[in-house]
Structure formats: C-alpha cells, structure tokens
C-alpha cells in the first residue's frame, strides 16, 4: 500500500513557480484540506496528478485542448514538471517533465511504470465529472461512468471498432450500388427481366449459330466463338468501320451523369442555408440539449426571472417557459442539422457512384478510331471533362465542417449547381449529336444488311461477354465483401458483449460499497435506498440508474432524484471504484465535489470520510469558506493548506491553513482587532447554529436575515442549564461568556462596527469561547464532533466517547 509524501508542480497549467505540497508530517503521510478561491490554481494540482498517472488530461482533451495546453504560458523548456514522492521505496520519486519539442512524449525520471501500475483506476474526481454524470443522456452517462470507473480506453476501443464498421459498411453498400448498375446494363443488353447468366449465354450461343461457330452455351466456348467473329469483322474494312461506329455509340451511351445530382445539390444548399439561418452562435449549442432537457424536468417548480443559469441570456417571464423555448429552438436546429447530414450523404452516394466520363469513354472505345465530326467530339470531350472536374470539386466541397456553415459554402454549392446544370445540358447536347451522327454514319457507311447484321451480332457477342465478366467480377467482389463485413460485425458484437459483461462485473463488484456510501450520503432522505447501475442491452453503451424509492424499484432514477442526490450517486460510484480497484494506492483527490450539497448534506460527506476512509489518504479541495471551516473543525488531524491569492507570473500564494480561532489570535497579535472581531463573529455564529440544531434548542424563527448570534447563545445557555443543570461545566462556560462585559461590547460592535472595541476585550471573548468549545467538542482527535441530543437526557457525539449528562449532585464529562 502506497501513500503520497509530496507533490511538486511547476510551470504547469496555472502554476509557474515550483509549488511543493507536503503530505508528510513526522513519520506519517496525512490527508489534507486545500482551500483556495476560484482561479487560485487548485485544479492545476488535480490536472498534474492526472497527467502523471495517466499521461493525458481527459477533461481538457474533451474540449480540444491537447498536451500543448499543459505548460504555463511563461514556462520555458524544462520548467514544466510534476514530481510525486511515493511512500513505497520501490517507487520513490517519479518526475514527468514536459518536452516542448515532443509534446506527447514527456521526459520521465524515476519508476513511472511502477507508479502507474499501483494506480490502475482513477483516484481523482472533479465536480465536473459529477455534473456530467447528472446531466448526460444514457450513452453519455456511460462515458461519464467510464471516466469514474476507469474503463475509458476499453470504451474508446469499442467506439473505434464501430467507426470502422460504419465506414466499411458504407463501402460495401457502394459495391452493391455498382453491382446494381451492372445488373441494369446486363438486363438491358440481353433484354432479360432477371440477371441470369445461363439465359444470356444461350442468347450468345444462338448468335454464334448464325455464323457456324461453336454453339456450346458455356463461357469458354462462347469466348472462342467471339474471337472468331471479331477476326471476321477485322478482316473486312467496311465491317470494321461499321463496328467502330457501333462502339462509339456504346461508348457514348456509357457516359452518364446522375439526373438526380442537380436536384440533390439544390436540396443540400437549402438545408445548409436553413441551418445557417437557425444557428444562434454555432452548431455546438446543440450540446445544450441534454442540459435543457434535464432543466425542463427540474425547473417545473422554479419561477425566477432575470438571467438564465443555463445559457446565461436574459429572459422575460417564467424560467421554465424560457428553457422550453430554448429547447424547442435547439431541437429545431438539430432537425435541420439532421436533414443537412442526410442530404449530404445522398449527394455523397451519387458522387461516389459517378464514373469518370472521359475514362469510361476512352476505355469503352478502346483502340477504335471511328471517323467522326472532330468538332463535335472535341466539344463532347470538353463538356465531359468539365463535368468530371465539377464532380471532383463537389467531392472536395462535401468535406465541409457541418458545425460551421458559412456563406462561402452556400455560395459555392449554388455556383456548382448552376454550372453543373449548364454542363449537363451541354454534355447531353453533344452526346446526342454524336450518337445521332454515329447512327447516321452507320446507316450510310454500308447498306449491306448482311454486313450490318454481322457488326451488330459481333458487338452483341463481344459486349455481352464483357458484361458477363464484369457481372461475375462485381458479384464475387460484393459476395466476398459481405462475408468479411458479416464476420467483422459478429466480431465487433462479440467485443461489445464481452465488454458489457466486464463492465457489469465491475458494477456488481462495487455495488455493495456504492449502496453503503450512497445511503450514508442520503441518510436524511426518507425512503431512498438501494442504488444500482444497470446496463441497457438495447444499445452499445448505455446505463440506467435504479434506486429503491419508498419500497419500489425506480428506473431510471432520474424520475425522482434531485441533482444533489444524483451527485451522491456519482460520488458513491467513484469512491467505491477508486477504493475497490486501487488496491495498492490509498490516495484520493476530491476536487470541489460538494458544490451541489447543501449545509445539511455536507457533514454527511465528513461522516463518510471519517467512517469509511480513515485508512485512506485524501486531498480534499474546496473554494467554499464554510465547508473549509467545517472540515477544519471535524478533521483536526488533517493538514490544512490555503491558497490565499494568485499571481499570473508565479501561481498561488501558499500558507498553512490556520484554524479560524488561530486566525483570530494571529489578527490580535498583529493588532488588528476589527479583523479579529469580524472573523470571530462569523465563526462563533456558524458554530452556534450547528450546536443549536444538535441540542434541539428552541430558537425564535425570524425571516429577516439579521443578527442572530446573541439569540443563539442565549437559547443555548438556557438549554444547557435546563438539560445539564446550571452548574454543569458547559453551562458555566456559556454563562461566563454571556454575562461578561467584553462579550456585550463585542456583540454590540458586531452589530454596529461604529461602536468601539478594544483588543483586550476580543482577547477575553476568544479565551471564554475556547473554554466553551473545550466543553462542547469531543476531544478525540478523530471525532471532534458536537454532541447531539439523544431525546432522553444526554448529548452524545458521533463516536460515542463524549457524553454530556445531567449528574446528581454534580454533572461531569464522562469519557468511555
């Protein structure tokens, strides 16, 4: 089992100067609370950990920020590094140094492989990971879970297999299209309703019979007969001339441009224009759809006005209405984008099927050189070449980025469509003219019907055999490709099944822990228990959450769970995975994970850490001052680190995180009574609120957000006197504080800062308050809890070692 002794970061993300964070104190590696406001560089620590332990920072990669974004902008070569000292001597110190010349290959010092082999699963989590878990759709939640549970690479492999499958499937579909084209020509040539080689050979055999050639209806025999017939034509110059015209006509008829292309281009241009008109900023706004869908469900009862917390725009009227409108707009945009995609695919299919005209013409004509109007042929070739060029440009044009539709694209589509219309017309005109001329030349070249019949039959035979060859080739190719595709599909399906089984196995392995942790976090939610992760079998990658809600299994759990309850679910999954799968590393980083938890739920996170992670080493980061106070108070043995301010050219200013009462003492030493006064006031009021709740004090409710310290202290004093008697040390300490002049002056100063306060008076209040705390808090360092009223006659802390009881004749503190 390894722990972390020190993390040192420099020149990385927001941290420029070398920043060491020590977890080692005496002979022990400790947990730590790292407090810092927004933008002070806390998350750079998490990023640095992720970089060293996995080689990549996933949340940056999702935003398109790759390794080049890791160094601080002012860091020079050799200055960007992360160094981690492990307690395990076999690993020791491991350092990763960013190399500006090879950004994906950092320079490694120490036993990095050994370090990474200890951390087989992610042991860090950010608030953003939980947010993704809450708001994403089923398949996206699967991705978020992959991140929480450490099977990202496995899932990426699956996605890659599927992408290849899609591409290969498209290529096979194209082969089928080409085979369909041959089928059509085959049927037309042989005047058959079905593609039957046997019937075609029979027809060819019948033709051979007319010239006393071998008539066995086999391919081999017919090919020999064909050679003989071709020789017969070649020996007769007039027949040869006729055959050349015949070949020209066939070559011309083989040259086609899809009649659908112009209309498809017009539709594509319309779709692109509509998307451009509908898009507010860019198409990526569609990423908001899942968020808005969640909000649509959640905001039914919320009716604030002003600025939308989702998209940031100002709205008038009901927020829910606003969200629905935004959702409707984005859905419309999504529909338009889908239409654009479909039309683009339609054009792409047509373009893929386009056979280059010039090449087709030349290949078909082969060596034949029919005597023909050279100008018409030149015009035909020019139109054909221009059409081929236009198709080529359209192929390039189709690679446009569908998230950025601009006027240039729409303009280009229009220009090419207009040009193609003209070219099509020109091409058709010269093609028809040449066919007409070929027919005319054929008719006048030789009027001998026997010779004309010979040429027609030789053409029928020769082209018929070519078509049979082509058909066989295309059929074979398609058959083979489909076999490979079928096998590939089966293989990918097998991977997906194996992968899902593996993921389900992981879920099952951690389910007990997930339940335990979730139920600790949701202790105060009646009727909620039994969280489960279930894989959907209808999709590759999808997961649904299930919970027991008042005795019934509810799936998906989103029907009833709030955002914070879903966050509890996500946190429970992460903690269960990190602890179950990381057998060799006890370190955990929790980066601002309680943001959606209210003041009632946060202490439950502390309960969870204290009771289930006492053997783990935790780095807990927060920007929340109140949460920090709670952590400091409840986790007294942890290291406390404060990032007080941030300077661009340096990084965060790091100070030991003082307990608030130590800060008050520090301010008094610096002769800053006002600061001491203010800090002490906030702290005492916070603690009194918590104590009053646990002691179940009767406090008059007021809706005004006004000064409550005096009321809270007074009611607590009365409660203690009532339940513990007036001479109980706690009652005495409270009375001592409450009745002192120093407290009176301090309380008045807190209400009205204009009233004078002397440093000695604050010192006296501080001393008397410390006396109260020494009676209030459990003095066990691992507990340090405030005792709670047990509804009988005593107050008991969570570890049970401190029990405040009414004793007769004298009350005492009994330690177990």
């Amino acid at each position, binding site marked *: 089992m390894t722990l972390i002794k020190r993390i040192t970061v420099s020149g990385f993300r927001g941290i420029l100067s070398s920043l060491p964070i020590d977890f080692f104190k005496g002979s022990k590696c400790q947990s730590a609370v790292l407090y810092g406001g927004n933008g002070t560089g806390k998350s750079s620590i998490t990023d640095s950990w992720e970089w060293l332990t996995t080689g990549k920072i996933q949340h940056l990669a999702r935003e398109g920020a790759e390794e080049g974004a890791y160094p601080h902008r002012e860091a020079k070569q050799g200055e960007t590094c992360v160094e981690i000292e492990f307690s395990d001597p076999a690993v020791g110190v491991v350092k990763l140094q960013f190399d500006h010349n090879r950004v994906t290959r950092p320079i490694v010092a120490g036993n990095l492989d050994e370090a*990474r082999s200890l951390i087989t*699963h992610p042991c860090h989590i950010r608030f953003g990971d939980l947010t993704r878990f809450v708001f994403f759709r089923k398949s996206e939640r699967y991705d978020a879970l992959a991140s929480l549970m450490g099977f990202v690479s496995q899932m990426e*492999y699956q996605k890659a297999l599927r992408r290849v499958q899609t591409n290969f499937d498209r290529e096979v579909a194209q082969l089928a299209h080409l085979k369909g084209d041959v089928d059509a020509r085959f049927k037309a040539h042989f005047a058959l309703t079905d593609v039957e080689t046997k019937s075609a050979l029979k027809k060819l055999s019948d033709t051979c019979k007319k010239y006393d050639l071998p008539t066995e209806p086999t391919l081999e025999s017919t090919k020999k007969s064909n050679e003989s017939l071709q020789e017969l034509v070649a020996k007769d110059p007039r027949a040869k001339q006729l055959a050349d015209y015949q070949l020209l006509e066939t070559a011309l008829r083989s040259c086609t441009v899809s009649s659908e292309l112009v209309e498809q281009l017009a539709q594509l241009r319309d779709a692109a224009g509509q998307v451009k008109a509908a898009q507010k900023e860019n198409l990526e706004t569609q990423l908001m759809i899942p968020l808005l869908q969640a909000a649509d469900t959640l905001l039914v009862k919320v009716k604030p006005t002003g600025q939308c917390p989702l998209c940031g725009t100002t709205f008038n009227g009901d927020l829910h209405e606003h969200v629905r409108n935004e959702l409707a707009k984005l859905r419309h945009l999504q529909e338009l984008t889908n239409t654009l995609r479909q039309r683009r695919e339609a054009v792409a299919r047509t373009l893929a099927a386009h056979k280059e005209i010039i090449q087709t013409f030349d290949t078909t004509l082969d060596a034949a050189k029919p005597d023909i109007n050279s100008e018409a042929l030149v015009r035909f070739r020019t139109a054909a070449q221009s059409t081929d060029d236009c198709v080529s440009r359209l192929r390039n044009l189709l690679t446009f980025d569908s998230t950025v539709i601009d006027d240039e694209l729409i303009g280009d589509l229009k220009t090419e469509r207009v040009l193609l219309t003209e070219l099509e017309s020109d091409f058709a005109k010269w093609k028809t003219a040449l066919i007409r001329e070929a027919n005319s030349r054929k008719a006048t070249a030789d009027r001998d019907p026997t010779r004309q019949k010979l040429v027609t039959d030789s053409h029928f035979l020769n082209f018929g055999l070519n078509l049979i060859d082509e058909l066989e080739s295309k059929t074979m190719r398609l058959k083979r490709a489909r076999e490979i595709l079928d096998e590939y599909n089966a293989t990918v399906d097998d991977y997906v099944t194996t992968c899902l089984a593996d993921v389900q196995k992981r879920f099952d392995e951690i389910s007990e822990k997930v339940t335990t942790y979730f139920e600790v976090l949701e202790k105060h939610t009646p009727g909620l228990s039994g969280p489960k992760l279930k894989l959907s079998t209808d999709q590759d990658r999808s997961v649904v959450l299930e919970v027991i809600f008042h005795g019934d299994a509810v799936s998906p759990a989103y029907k009833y769970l709030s955002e914070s309850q879903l966050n509890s679910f996500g946190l429970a999954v992460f903690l269960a995975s990190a602890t179950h799968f990381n057998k060799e590393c006890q370190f955990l980083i929790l980066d601002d994970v309680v943001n959606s938890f209210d003041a009632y739920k946060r202490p439950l996170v502390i309960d969870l850490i204290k009771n289930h992670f006492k053997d783990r080493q935790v780095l807990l980061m927060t920007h929340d001052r109140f949460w920090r106070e709670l952590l400091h108070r409840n986790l007294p043995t942890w290291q406390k680190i404060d990032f007080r301010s941030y300077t661009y050219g340096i990084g965060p200013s790091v100070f030991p995180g003082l307990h608030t009462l130590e800060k008050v003492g520090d301010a008094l030493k610096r002769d800053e009574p006002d600061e001491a006064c203010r800090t002490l006031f906030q702290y005492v009021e916070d603690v009194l609120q918590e104590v009053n709740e646990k002691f179940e004090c009767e406090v008059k409710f007021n809706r005004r957000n006004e000064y409550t310290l005096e009321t809270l202290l007074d009611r607590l004093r009365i409660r203690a006197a009532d339940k513990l008697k007036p001479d109980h040390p706690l009652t005495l300490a409270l009375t001592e504080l409450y009745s002192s002049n120093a407290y009176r002056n301090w309380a008045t100063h807190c209400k009205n800062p204009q009233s004078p306060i002397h440093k000695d008076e604050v010192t006296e209040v501080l001393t008397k308050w410390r006396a109260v705390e020494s009676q209030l808090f459990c003095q066990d360092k691992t507990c340090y809890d405030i005792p709670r009223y047990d509804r009988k006659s005593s107050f008991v802390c969570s570890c049970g070692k401190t029990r405040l009881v009414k004793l007769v004749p004298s009350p005492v503190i009994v330690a177990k």
Partner: protein
Amino acid sequence: MSANETTATKFISEWLNNTKRTDNNSAVVQAISEATEKGILEEAKLLEKLRELAQPEREGQKA
C-alpha cells in the same frame, strides 16, 4: 502508457487471444489484432486490411 491503458490493454489483448482461439485464426480477427497496438486501434490500418480481405482473389483463404 498509463495504468488505465494497462488495464484496457490487458482486457483487449485477452479478448483478442480468446477470439483468435475460438474463431480458429480468423483473418478478420487477425486484421484487428494487427491494427491494435497497446490497446489502441489504428482505424485507417484496419479499414485497409478489411479492404484487402474483401478482394475476391483472397477467397481461397479463410475469412
């Protein structure tokens, strides 16, 4: 290579080996295997291999 990739690599490698055994050296599985390096699939390489396999002259070989 990261630790996470090590886990994934192991999973992918085991799956490939099992599939190879089950499918009696299938050329498709072999192609996937050859396009896989350290748990990462080179998609272009695999597509090219599938195209090669789809050529009819290779039909004599087992798919």
